[in-house]
């Protein structure tokens, strides 16, 4: 009973060089086709979609091609009375989109264009007695929301408004036998969730609580023979998981535990050389989400044609510096 390794094969015809101009054109065009089927069907996550696209453009030094005023106006219209942001106008507020909104505002150095005090009020109202965070008033708890809350507050320099020690305790209660983290206490480790928890601990200066030997080993074992990384054992490789695993490794100082050249080759192979953009795997349909994480991954791997990315916030390092955020990575 042998276990076959799930993986992909990269064909010889797959792209081998970075097609920056195509990606910039792809993202720029994506936002302008507002009556497109895909565009309308993804309205429920518009704010995050904009964060992915705009950050990708900024990493490619082409943010000026996007319409800043239109973006800011849209964000303003998405803020609710409670302080939180919805994914789109008229959509309910949620921490996920509140973080995306604050990230975009920080990219544009325009935090003052919305009500910051209200954002703080919203986030603090969602922290629970056990330190966890609700995603919105309906009460779903998830370590993703712990990251959203802490990242958001760090970006607006208001971390001291929540109970950080309790927030840390909750995240630690989601730590597992493999050194990773899951959604809630008891949940299985998953690299997206690990990124959130490791990032959260990095922001609040508690990285020493991580078992880096154990977690680093589990993370570097995500690399498959194709070079791509999967999100959990026995799963297929994916560009977005490549980012989450890679950034987590970077934060805990173990980036060198994977084979960088092979991963670069995998990420490049996920580009679409006709339309621009990155897909989850070679030969699949592209989207802005994987395009951002493809570019961010290449940046962490040292591609100098892309701006240096911050592994915790997935935003350009220069933006994080401008926002005055200091973090000690391991």
């Amino acid at each position, binding site marked *: 009973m*042998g276990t076959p390794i799930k993986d992909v094969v990269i064909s010889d015809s797959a792209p081998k060089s970075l097609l920056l101009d195509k990606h910039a054109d792809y993202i720029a065009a994506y936002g302008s086709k507002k009556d497109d089927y895909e565009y*309308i069907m993804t309205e*429920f996550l518009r704010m995050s979609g904009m964060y992915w696209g705009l950050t990708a453009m900024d990493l490619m030094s082409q943010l000026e091609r996007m319409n800043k005023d239109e973006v800011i106006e849209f964000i303003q219209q998405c803020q609710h009375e409670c302080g939180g942001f919805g*994914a789109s106008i008229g959509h309910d507020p949620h921490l996920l989109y509140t973080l995306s909104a604050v990230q975009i505002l920080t990219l544009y150095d325009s935090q003052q264009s919305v009500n910051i005090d209200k954002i703080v009020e919203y986030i603090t109202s969602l922290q629970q007695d056990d330190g966890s965070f609700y995603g919105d008033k309906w009460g779903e708890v998830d370590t993703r929301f712990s990251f959203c809350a802490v990242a958001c507050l760090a970006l607006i320099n208001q971390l001291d408004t929540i109970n950080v020690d309790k927030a840390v305790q909750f995240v630690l209660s989601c730590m597992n036998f493999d050194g990773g983290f899951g959604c809630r206490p008891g949940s299985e480790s998953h690299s997206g969730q690990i990124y959130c928890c490791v990032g959260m601990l990095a922001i609040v200066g508690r990285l*020493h609580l991580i078992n880096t030997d154990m977690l680093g080993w589990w993370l*570097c074992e995500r690399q498959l023979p194709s070079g791509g990384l999967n999100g*959990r054992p026995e799963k297929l490789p*994916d560009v977005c998981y490549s980012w989450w695993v890679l950034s987590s490794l970077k934060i805990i100082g173990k980036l060198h535990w994977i*084979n960088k050249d092979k991963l670069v080759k995998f990420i490049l192979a996920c580009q*679409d050389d006709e339309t621009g953009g990155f897909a989850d795997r070679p030969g699949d349909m592209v989207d802005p989400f994987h395009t951002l994480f493809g570019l961010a991954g290449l940046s962490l791997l040292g591609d100098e044609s892309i701006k240096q990315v911050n592994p915790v916030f997935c935003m350009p390092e220069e933006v994080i510096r401008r926002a005055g955020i200091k973090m000690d990575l391991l």
Partner: protein
Amino acid sequence: MHGRVKVKTTAEQQEAKRKEREKKLKIYTAATEKIFEKRKNKEYDEEALKITGEILAVNSDFSTFWNYRKEIFLNMTENKPENEMIEIFKGELQFLESCLRTNPKSYGVWNHRCFIMETMPKPDWKKELELCNLFLEYDERNFHCWDYRRFVVKKANISPEEELEFTTNKICNNFSNFSSWHYRSKLLPLIYPDENSTIGVEENILIKEYETVQNAFFTDPDDQSAWFYHRWLLGRGKIKTGVNCMLIDRTYQMLMINTTQPVMISPSTCEIDVLLNGERVEGTWRTHKQQTDVYSSIWIFKSTEDESWIPMHEDAEVAMAVVGEDWGSSDSVQINSTQTVAWNLTHEEQGLRFRDELSAATTDTLQRELDSIQELYELEPENKWVLLTIVSLMKALNPKQYANDIEIFLSKLITIDSSRINYYWDLRSKCLIENYLEELDFSTRVISLQNQNISCLVHPELFSMVVKIDLSNNKLDSVKGFSCFQCAVDIHVDGNQIKDLEELSFLHGLKLLSIKDNNISSLESLQPLGKTSILKLYLFGNPVVENIDELEVKKIIPSLHNFDGHMM
């Protein structure tokens, strides 16, 4: 968008698809507009359920519409009789099940199901457990379903014992089931808790688990789930926070402590009282990197009252007492009139530093494990999991005795698992350094680890009291961790691949740095040395030396007297 293969289509097909999508969009947009309109008008009726249902069936992550549905259910519950509501709720559960069949990994659907089950009268939790069983049959790795199962188990008061049995059955069906192994790791400490054991589970149970997991990897040695689980079983217990070393230095008028775990010393979290000959001294604590309000294993105390608070030429006693924390009670150091430095190495009484003391029963089990996995190695000489597990077992049993074997197995891993070469190099370095430190007489204050192919420095905080450090001819590519060398006077790191000197700026007592034959490529890289009072620098054999101007070097490092053997 995940797993959607791009298909080549003709212009004709594309046009047909465009038309079809246009039609769909019209319906979709009309429906969403209507929903927003109805919600604005606070209409909580069957029609609203119907239209939101149509949208959510195709777009299950549209959270705003799930929220509207929640509002509808809350409103209806207030206005309809219970019998009628039970039927409506049942209908909702059916609807959700159909959504799960098309999209079993939707956060929105699972979350809404939790809400419905918690809101409806007389929820049938047993039936929910059956639903979990069903969806775990379709996909035994669906973590949404596992999480929902844990939610149901809590509500239905199902015992951890029953759940453990469930995982046993799942694993017997298919060893390659990471989710089930994971669940076991959560259940065992609940059922058989033992705070004193390494992983919080009673020893006899732990020993049984070794057997279970061994069955798994003997059946399928390529399946990583069991190997990860095995590594957990071998894990170390919690390390108690305490003081490793306490040192006072008259020259720098400092008290330095090195703790077994990073701690934060600050007025708001944990305070440490410092007493000189029984009298309290006011002062500040900073880390070796001059930081405050962070967690660190090295802290340095200086008096704010008196710059020379440790008196010269007389006997003295410096004592410290931790206030308001459960770690390290109190320690003290005596310094006599002739000493410039004195220390107290509390860790020397604490036994093994890098591994746990094993009981006879566990030692016996691990030894038998090692023997049988070595048999497996005979059959599977190229299996990396087998090799690495042998290393882990040897490390847990007796790293010193097995040092040579560990070296051989790690070298083999480096050749067969090309993606993770640096992981194995670092693990090898860890073994070497730990073995070295375990035997080191710290009071010599000398560390000498040359020609060992060390790729990274582990436990640098234990080097904090060392004066002379020689790490020449290794594979280090940075000085990461070197800021811990707070007492260092001489550092030799010739023949490595070091590119930057960043952390050296914190070494106030550094007098000599020999960094010949490394990768220092620019004058700017020398800047951190400008913050030290270094006298001698050996830089020969670095790219930067090719056309270096000694005056420029002197400008960057004003304290320098001797550069590459020349007086300056």
